[in-house]
């Protein structure tokens, strides 16, 4: 391996910090084991592609793509789309949970015209 360029050093440093963050998040339980593994693997592949750019070109050629950089771009775009979709789905789920919580509180704190709390009777709740 020849000497590293400045760009490679910067990218590898960023990947190293990211990898450290992933490991810490995994150990502290902020992310699941599967998520930690997935993102750790992504960091690892990115580091390999940075260190050995010719390897990506060879793989790209196997897939009938001219340049390794194009292959990396395609994969990055696909991964970003998957990431956006997963984030969107998680957001939807959170919104739904938030709505359930807001609804529950609204029903518990319902007021009638006299300003009294109007918690539905248990018998009514059973009917519903």
């Amino acid at each position, binding site marked *: 391996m020849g000497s590293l360029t400045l760009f490679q050093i910067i990218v590898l440093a960023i990947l190293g910090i990211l990898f450290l963050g992933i490991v810490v998040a995994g150990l502290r339980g902020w992310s699941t084991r599967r998520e930690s593994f997935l993102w750790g693997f992504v960091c690892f592949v990115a580091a390999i592609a940075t260190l050995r750019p010719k390897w990506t070109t060879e793989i790209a050629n196997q897939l009938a793509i001219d340049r390794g950089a194009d292959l990396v771009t395609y994969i990055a775009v696909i991964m970003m789309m998957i990431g956006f979709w997963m984030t969107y789905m998680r957001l939807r789920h959170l919104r739904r949970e938030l*709505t359930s919580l807001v609804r529950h509180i609204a*029903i518990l704190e319902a007021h009638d015209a006299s300003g009294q709390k109007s918690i539905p009777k248990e018998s009514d709740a059973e009917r519903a």
Partner: protein
Amino acid sequence: MASLSSAVRDATFVVVPAYNEGPALESVIHEVRAAFPNVVVVDDGSNDDTGAISRRCATYTLRHMINRGQGAAIQTGLEFALLRGAEYVVTFDADGQHRVEDIPRLLCPILNDECEITIGSRFLGEVTDLPASRRLVLRAAVLFTRVVNGVKLTDAHNGLRAFSRQAAQKIRIRQDRMAHASEIIDLIKNTGLPFREVPVRIRYTEYSLKKGQSAKGAFRIVFHYLVGRMVD
């Protein structure tokens, strides 16, 4: 107005979802309460005087601590009405566009066991003062419902609806925002609940038109609805 017995009126809960509807809400509540004693206003996290007006005038006031959208507010109102023992639930907009006289018309087919759900249709009744742009958006919604939901309706986004207790128990609105109207059509189709469209008249005022959906809003509704259909 078709006559309803007092027992039916007492058993009917009118759910009014309201978000920043201060200017119109008081008269809407008074109008509805004059005919139906159980008016449930769901204040959807308003930051004007909607909550204060509702607490003063409505039979029941529920407040969403934060804004969750009209679909969420309707579902909250439905659940509360069922818990209070409602036999019939009507959804009624807070902006003054609906007429109380149309509620008995919506309830009659349900009372006669002809169906479990009735949906108001402005295009079956007399249409007055409807701007051309709004008509176009509503017609597009009807076409969309026909193609995507596979249900033939004349008015797909009318907030005036009536449910029997059994129907309200089966309806679970998951679209928090405005896409709930299309979702309700889906739920009706999937549950096999018999429904009918009933002619109603919409009052188009400057205020209600301002509160209504724009073409841009319609695209957002379509997006939320399609995503919801794919993943829910």
